[in-house]
């Protein structure tokens, strides 16, 4: 359970990230379908968000002054479910209902099923526009919370993303932060082969955004980049998180074939052994 007002150490956050990865592997194996690589790659960012960056109350998910976290690339939602369970939005046992009939944890996120999700997503490219709307509403209402959006790199091939990037830049939405999961893979292969996105940072800068590029597995860098983004109030901010798809599971890392499939029972066993050993290393590293 996330305790408001408590400052979580980097070690504590790293351990949460590792637990989130274990949950992802277990959930996907149990579900028998779903996406592995993206969620594992974003576990560090979600741990940092839910245990340091976001202002939120797991026991009061509709709290009016909460920071908004919009997930645009809905297929990566297992990492969000796992982070929410770690933070105490619901029990960890419920994670095993992922994608099953009657679950609140649909294959793609549905805000009306699970409190704490800001919207529903799945078809790519729709989240950033909604985050813009939430950021504008906050300004209209004199609220000081921040709206964060998580987008994937591949979904930047959707036209609507660029409509929203143009709009947010023009309207100078200083309370909006777009976190891009830059893992360089999509279903058909490497992004730069399927449809190149580079120079991505320059594109955002040209549209009037504050842009930083960081290692998406460096917790301090993620926290610092979000703090810097909050300090930039005259422009929207874009944080490009360079991540390793499948991070933490050796045979999944960097392999685009793990974008859209779950591990088998044996594969999950191997993955969980690796992650548990990583957990021990984290405790030694921060000791």
């Amino acid at each position, binding site marked *: 359970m996330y305790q408001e007002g408590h400052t979580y150490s980097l070690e504590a956050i790293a351990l949460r990230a590792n637990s989130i990865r274990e949950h992802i592997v277990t959930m996907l194996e149990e579900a028998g379908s779903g996406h592995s690589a993206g969620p594992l790659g974003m576990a560090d960012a979600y741990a940092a968000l839910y245990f340091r960056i976001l202002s939120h109350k797991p026991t009061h998910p509709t709290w009016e002054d909460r920071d908004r976290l919009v997930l645009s690339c809905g297929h990566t939602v297992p990492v969000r479910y796992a982070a929410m369970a770690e933070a105490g939005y619901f029990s960890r046992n419920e994670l095993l209902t992922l994608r099953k009939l009657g679950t609140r944890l649909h294959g793609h996120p549905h805000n009306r099923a699970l409190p704490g999700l800001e*919207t529903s997503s799945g078809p790519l*490219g729709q989240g950033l*526009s*909604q985050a813009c709307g939430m950021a504008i509403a906050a300004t209209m209402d004199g609220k000081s919370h921040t709206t964060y959006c998580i987008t994937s790199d591949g979904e930047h091939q959707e036209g609507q993303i660029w*409509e929203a990037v143009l709009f947010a830049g023009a309207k100078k939405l200083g309370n909006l932060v777009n976190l891009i999961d830059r893992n360089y893979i999509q279903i058909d292969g490497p992004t730069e082969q399927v449809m190149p996105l580079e120079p991505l940072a320059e594109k955002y800068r040209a549209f009037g955004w504050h842009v930083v590029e960081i290692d998406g597995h460096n917790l301090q860098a993620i926290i610092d980049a979000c703090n810097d983004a909050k300090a930039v109030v005259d422009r929207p901010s874009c944080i490009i998180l360079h991540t390793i798809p499948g991070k933490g599971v050796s045979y999944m890392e960097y392999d685009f074939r793990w974008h859209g499939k779950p591990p088998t029972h044996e594969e999950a066993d191997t993955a969980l052994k690796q992650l548990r050993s990583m957990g021990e290393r984290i405790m030694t590293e921060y000791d």
Partner: protein
Amino acid sequence: MTKAALHLAPVGAELKGIRDGFGQGLLEVAALDPRVVVLSADLTESIRLEGFAKTYPDRFIELGVAEQNMAGVAAGLALSGKVPFIASYAVFNPGRNWDQLRVSICYSQANVKVIGAHAGISVGPDGATHQALEDIAITRVLPDLLVVAPTDYEEARKVVHAIVAHEGPVYVRFGREKTHQVTTEKTPFALGKAQVLRAGKAVTVIACGAQVYDALQAAEKLKKNHSIEVVSVSTIKPLDAETLLKSVRKTGRVVVVEEHQVTGGLGGAVCELLSQKLPVPVRLVGVPDTFGESGAASELLEKFHLTPQGIMAAVEEVACL
């Protein structure tokens, strides 16, 4: 309801734009409800948003020609407690942003009011690309979305009040041309209710939008030969099954008229109801599964039989069965 209680407009009353009634209604609700915000995609004057934009500049958002983003931004505003109106031509909104309407708005249950202007064949000279003849079909299939086609200026004004009072997404469509007045300020209106505007016994003519006036004209012209009941269906979804079935139980014959493709629109909705509950002969007056073309509004309406004469021909046909 008796004819007197309906307070219908006299025949030959001044022509007025349905879009002007929408613009007037918008100003009225804006004064009453600070949650109302308006989003425009470069068509502010054309859709009669300029009054709102001038009076409430802090609640007006110009997005440029970007209907998909407009739908998404509106969903975000709605999920933050606002009541956003998104307005463009119906061919773009919901034509261009249907996926956003489906997921960001309907599935997320975002309280967005979607305004499709310049709907129907009567947009005329601009040609087929700008003649929305499919919008009722593509909105009617979306769960949780209400679909409304106001009859005239006054009803459009009342519709704006009603949809703000309704918590949930709504699609409202209307044409560009000025139309005859059927209702007045005193005519009752309720979202989700069809209205029998003229009682009859032999054929039920069901219409929405500007075609309601034509249906009344057709009924008047045919009154010596056929007793026609005219039902105005402004709320296409949810369909007022009770009122329609009551009428059709009496008449046993139906004509549906709308400025839309004959497939998937009001005619489709009525046939879905009747085929399951009360199978009777039906004739559909509308655009017969084809694209429109350039021409004057009156020429196009005539070409596709969307006139009192066209309705009379359909009534004669169904009455002989």
